[in-house]
């Protein structure tokens, strides 16, 4: 197989930032080529250049053997290059079909041939096995569906080389599985895919080859699947990929000794509540969390995890049941009281809940404790203390840039998350509720956050870890509970849990009695 694309010495600067620093990239026809790198490595910039959104400061692009200048996305589309952005560019009130044909509508200049559009989209969706309902409005379909619409849109415009920018970031595990199927089908039909990610597992699972980008440079291009390779290949390990990506050896395994569980500190009995749509979301949850242990809650998104956390932290009213923190009933207490009694909370959505993006790092560093001495005395803010506090967190957690006056919204996702984790751990809580503590965070920051959570456990704190990533649950937890449809359907010591059993339970299966432990 020949190269469909060659990019040579691509350089792109944004002011003082060198986003791409002489990157070479070769993509073979018909392969799935992963572009791996941490947040900010320059992956999106490189692909935006390929798609004609930016002009490179230096370097050349050869497409199908010919040198090309891609002045704008229209030129890219003409060449057969399509891109699905990290954030979709669909028009919500329009139907699926309307969105797909937009810009290249069938019909006359003045009239849109709606039926024709629907027909075309239906044919296209059959051809590629991408199931969509052409007449549904985009605003009413799931994120996974919207992504398919974006892919179909690119295919409709004749894309032969398809760029997917972090396509799995927004998907549930099942949707990821389906996306992989779609990608495989597309390459079978002769398309080529460039697939951006910062997740190591996905690279090894999906890609034929990978190019690792670090700080705007291509640090390696490696064979993974062996498809199209001249000889037999030994794929890299996760650890090798991680080291290339981060630039130093990273430990992917969490080092932790056995837990020494103490007193029960958080007890939940028969907790029930309604979800945002008014339907029962929790249907009698029972849990006990002990000091000095990490209890992991596994489950597919939308099985009541969010509501459980909100009930525990005081953001949602339970309709029945009882929550006790160190023996005291906190079921009806407001958020602030719970914090004063020793609860801390790393929320699952850092941008919507965890931070005030327009506040500075320092202002965010006291969020929740802002009314207390030493940050506030007699109602007056003590900014020097606040700044000093922020500087301490910045130092302890290596938050970058190390400037308390930076706007929190301008930090990278990983640094935003480190700021939240730092703030919550610094509260010295009795119980730390960590919801998706590493979602969308790069490998270096994941390592740091995991180590801190284990350290907190070792200091006798109780950690309730809620995560959609089974790997994370398995790596950190001492005990694991599985949530399914608003209930805890199983609980087991971490040693007894395997990916298979958990996966089965998460999907609503039952546990064979042979494995011991009590199911429900």
């Amino acid at each position, binding site marked *: 197989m020949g190269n469909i694309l060659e990019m040579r010495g691509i350089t792109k600067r*944004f*002011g*003082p*930032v060198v986003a791409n620093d002489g990157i070479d990239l070769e993509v073979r026809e018909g392969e799935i080529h992963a572009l791996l790198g941490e*947040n900010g490595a320059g992956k*999106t910039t490189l692909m935006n250049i390929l798609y004609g959104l930016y002009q490179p400061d230096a370097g050349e692009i050869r497409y199908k053997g010919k040198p090309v200048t891609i002045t704008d996305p229209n030129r890219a589309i003409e060449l057969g290059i399509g891109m699905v952005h*990290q*954030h979709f560019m669909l028009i919500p009130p329009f139907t699926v079909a309307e969105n797909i044909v937009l810009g290249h509508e069938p019909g006359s200049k003045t009239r849109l041939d709606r039926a024709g559009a629907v027909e075309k989209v239906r044919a296209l969706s059959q051809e590629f096995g991408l199931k969509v309902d052409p007449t549904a409005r985009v605003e009413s379909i799931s994120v996974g569906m919207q992504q398919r619409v974006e892919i179909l849109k690119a295919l409709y415009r004749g894309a032969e080389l398809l760029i997917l920018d972090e396509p799995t970031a927004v998907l549930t595990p099942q949707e990821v599985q389906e996306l992989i199927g779609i990608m495989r089908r597309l390459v079978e039909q002769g398309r080529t895919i460039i697939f951006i990610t910062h997740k190591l597992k996905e690279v090894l699972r999906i890609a034929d080859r990978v190019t690792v980008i670090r700080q705007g440079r291509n640090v390696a291009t490696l064979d993974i699947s062996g498809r199209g390779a001249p000889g037999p290949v030994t794929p890299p390990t996760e650890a090798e990929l991680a080291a290339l990506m981060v630039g130093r050896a990273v430990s992917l395994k969490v080092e932790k000794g056995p837990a020494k569980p103490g007193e029960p500190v958080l007890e939940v009995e028969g907790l029930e509540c309604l979800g945002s749509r008014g339907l029962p979301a929790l249907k009698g949850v029972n849990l006990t969390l002990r000091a000095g242990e990490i209890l992991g809650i596994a489950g597919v998104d939308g099985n009541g995890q969010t509501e459980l956390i909100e009930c525990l*932290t*005081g*953001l949602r009213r339970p309709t029945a049941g009882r929550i006790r923190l160190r023996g005291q009933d906190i079921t009806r207490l*407001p*958020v*602030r009281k719970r*914090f004063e009694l020793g609860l801390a*909370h790393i*929320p699952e959505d850092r*941008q*919507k*809940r*965890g*931070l*005030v*993006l*327009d*506040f*500075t*790092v*320092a*202002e965010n*560093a006291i*969020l*929740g404790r*802002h*009314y207390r001495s030493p940050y*506030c005395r007699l*109602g*007056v*803010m003590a*900014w020097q203390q*606040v*700044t000093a506090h*922020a*500087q301490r967190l910045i130092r302890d957690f290596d938050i970058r*840039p*190390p*400037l*308390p*006056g*930076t*706007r929190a*919204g*301008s*930090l*990278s*996702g990983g640094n935003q998350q480190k700021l939240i984790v730092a703030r919550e751990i610094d509260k010295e809580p009795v119980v730390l509720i960590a919801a998706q503590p590493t979602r*969308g965070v790069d490998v270096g920051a994941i390592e740091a956050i995991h180590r801190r959570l284990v350290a907190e456990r070792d200091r006798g704190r109780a950690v309730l870890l809620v995560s959609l990533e089974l790997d994370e649950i398995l790596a950190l937890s001492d005990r694991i509970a599985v949530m399914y449809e608003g209930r805890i359907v199983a609980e087991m010591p971490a040693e007894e849990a395997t990916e298979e059993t958990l996966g089965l339970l998460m999907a609503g299966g039952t546990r064979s009695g042979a494995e011991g432990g009590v199911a429900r």
Partner: protein
Amino acid sequence: MTGTVETRDPSRSQDQGRPQGRNRLRALLIEALVPIIAVVVALLIGLIFIAITGRDPAKAAEALWVANFGSRRAIGEALVSVTPLIFTGLSVAFAFRAGLFNIGGEGQYIVAQLAAAVAGYAITGLPGWLHVTVAILAGALAGGLWGAIPGLLKAYRGVHEVVNTIMMNYIALYLANYLIANYLKAPGALPVTPEILPTARLAQILPPSRLHTGLFLALGAAVLVYLLLWHTRWGYEIRAVGHNPRAAEYAGIDVPRNLALAMLISGALAGLAGTVQVLGVQRAFYDPVGGFVGYGFDGIAVALLGRNHPAGVVLAALLFGILDRAAPTMQAMAQVPKATIWVVQATVILLVAADQIIRSLFKRRREVAAR
């Protein structure tokens, strides 16, 4: 505003935790750049407009000068028209910091005028300093109450404050018409309350102009608003609620209470605009039979131009007050239609608004990219 990428030397990490920290001056200058450009461009457009309609721009400029700076009296009178704009500008800016859009300034202004006037003529036997204080408080309280009603409805019932503040404007207007017509009118033909007692007056400070101590109250209010927003716990909470109510809730901040409180204070500030007009200038409540006087609405423009910052509000009020004062003189001296001034004011607002729309789009894009 600085970009996403901090390129400063990290060893200089002593910078403050607040945006108004050590780099205050630089940050302020950058903040002020667009409003200043907007004003210059708008004035140029005004001059060109005057020239192409066949009038003399030099004469118009002279009129603007004479009206505002030509004499001791002119300076005083210019500041008389600036004073209420400072209050209404602060009112809108304060609400905005809590994420609320208070367009009820007109109504808050009217009820405050009524309350201050009644307190000014009906209460007798108080020493001067006490009487004027009571009258000021009466006005602030009435305005505050008028703001708090939509504030409470927003906070606890989720009704949008824009709709309710507009309705409250009309309620205030017709309530004033009704009360004057039936109960509060002074003897005589004019729809006006009796004059306030001398003890309730704000002292004049620059005779022969009508400039009064209300100017100091306005400047004091600007300082207080600044301190409240950036140096107290309540200000921190109000700003947190304004930027991200869900994060505020997560942090244990009582979001509805802060919303209601912000509207109360915002209403009181707009109310003070009316109060000082009654106690310092009008000496009585004149029934606004012809409709709203416009200080409340102008406050929106002033806050926008002043970037919702108290210092910016004071400067923007100065500009708008000066332009307002200039309009009649320009008409008389240079035959320039009064509407020319409105063109200038509107251009300023359009430019500043366009800038903010563009900025917010860019900010969103950058943040999306950073995720």
